[in-house]
């Protein structure tokens, strides 16, 4: 299959999705981030004794409001957008929610394959794969895969990359 046919197939029929647990993962991840931010705000209020200052109270209320909107909208939206596929010729990744990105790179240009697991994703059994090319602007990230699926993908990419010679620039 040529790169073109591969791309065409992928646009019309993108198969890979993140793990179903990804929604919960993104929710928890966002909650952790917002909680940390709110704690910082509270600490500032505590240190300066600003409990009755309307600007500080307003800021805290705004944080809570934005956090609730973000946490309730972002994870499902993300899940509906994210797609990935690895064919014999190309890698295809779609991600994002408000701003969405689709990235394509021919397999022959692949340089390194990196799997990452943070604390939260380890607990939930999820892996994120980062595939780099010779361009520092061209990395492809497949978010929140099941550990088993991720292992399979990494093994497959390693085999394919081994078959390609050249410096991929």
């Amino acid at each position, binding site marked *: 299959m040529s790169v073109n046919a591969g791309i065409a197939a992928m646009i019309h029929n993108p198969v890979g999705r993140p793990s179903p647990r990804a929604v919960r993962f993104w929710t928890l991840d966002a909650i952790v981030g917002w909680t940390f931010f709110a704690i910082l705000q509270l600490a500032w209020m505590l240190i300066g004794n600003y409990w009755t200052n309307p600007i500080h109270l307003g800021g805290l209320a705004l944080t809570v409001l934005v956090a609730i909107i973000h946490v309730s909208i972002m994870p499902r939206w993300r899940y509906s957008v994210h797609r990935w596929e690895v064919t014999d010729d190309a890698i295809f990744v779609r991600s994002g929610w408000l701003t969405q990105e689709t990235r394509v790179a021919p397999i022959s240009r692949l340089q390194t394959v990196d799997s990452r697991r943070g604390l939260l994703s380890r607990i939930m059994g999820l892996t994120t794969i980062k595939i780099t090319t010779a361009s520092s602007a061209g990395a492809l990230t497949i978010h929140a895969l099941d550990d088993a699926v991720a292992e399979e993908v990494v093994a497959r990419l390693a085999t394919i990359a081994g078959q390609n010679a050249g410096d991929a*620039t």
Partner: protein
Amino acid sequence: MSGAAAATGDTDDKPDDSALPWIRLNPLMLLVHPLRELIRYLPVIVVALIAGSVGGEPWWVYVLSGFGIVVGVLRWFTTSYRITDAHVQIKRGILNRQLLSVPRDRIRSVDVDSTILHRIFGLSVVKVGTGASHGVDNLEFNAMRTDDVSAFRTEMLSHVPRRADLLAEPADDADVAGRNFSRWRPSWVRYAPFTLSGVSSILVVVFFVLQTQFFENGLLTRLPFVKYELARIEHLPTLTLVVWSMCILIVVASAVAAVRYILSYSRFAISRVDQSTLHITHGLLHTRQITLDERRLRGIQLSEPLSLRAVGAAWTHAIMTGLGRQRGGVALLSPPGPRDEAVRIATDIVGVERALTEDLHQHGRRAHRRRYTRAATFAGILALVALGAQLLGWVSPAVWWAFVVIVPGSVFLAWDRYRGLGHSLLPGWVVGRSGSLDRKRFVLATDGIIGWTIRRSLFQRQAGLATLIATTAAGRHSYSIPDLPFDEAWPLIEAVNAQVRATSSGAVTPQESRGSRSGTP
């Protein structure tokens, strides 16, 4: 992948190699390195001395300076190199020792880069590169005698195959200078005030002046002599005041820009050593010399910011691999000067005049409307800020006069931005252009593109538009075509891929297809 492999995999020498002694770099670097370290700490030292004059002896400044000198001296003692039959090797590092070894047949480029300090001592920094994308395995010789560089370069590049019919004699420096085909003249300094650096320094000064106008206790007005001057000119009519300050502003900013222009671009010369090698040198204080061979060339970028365009000027850069991103991965091909000249040089290098001059495929009605929506949003945000500031009593109502300029200004920018927006696909090259205040046209080799990104914001999705980004291992690493109709994005990617496949499987290699250029001048 070549870089890491070259640096670590080839360290086991052949027996005959190991007999060669390791050589140190030029001993004058024992002076240059410490001086450089001191200059690097200079801002800290100055601040400390000023602060120190108020309270206590700044003993730690002496410690810092001493540390800098020691590090500088150690750097010379810990760096050595040798050139064997098969490899160029360099050992360096004070705490983390590092051995870099590059097989000689991989060497593709020899760049020379010298700061004013090096030049005072007659030294040059020589960078030997393999043409790999990130420049990780670039060997840096800091420094050797400038007189030896020419011979060193010839030796390093001696194995690089050249097509016999194009072969030129290895040129010495005088010869190379004689083949300069740039038409740079010192009189081009007249374009300096129109470069972005000139314009931005004007903007900075304007900002400060505005601060004194609208904020009654602005930073500047607190300075005693400014206070005095302000009191003196207070009774002058406002119009006279504005005209005078504009004149002074323009003169000062132009002078600054002219000095910068002369320092960076003086004696600009571009010479063809042979069909695949160009030497580019420029600069009064800091000189650079770049070997540009077509294995490294991925394209050209033509910059024509609004101010330069207004006087018919432009400048060009080569998009190359292996230059490192800290300099933006580009090599200057022609400094700000007449547009025709910029196009002539660029055409000589890419060999396709159309790529630089031809009208581009425009992005249509929706992209057009988006330019105006965004201009209106910008003006709207400014209006909200002005309104807020006025309600809080921070500024006088006179601030609304600024909108006499802002509103027509944004409409003009929207019009100009749309007029500049476009792309086209030529055999072997993708061309894209965008921007107005900082308009850039890039010409990128299709076989240098190593991936694509299609980015769509919420608003772009509603408008059916997309930003198409080509990623590459050279230059800025990503070149974007903004607000392309979404349904044209995939066909464009497919067309480029089809071209690359045709060239790589067909009889014509990418090198040859790009090598068919207009010949030596």
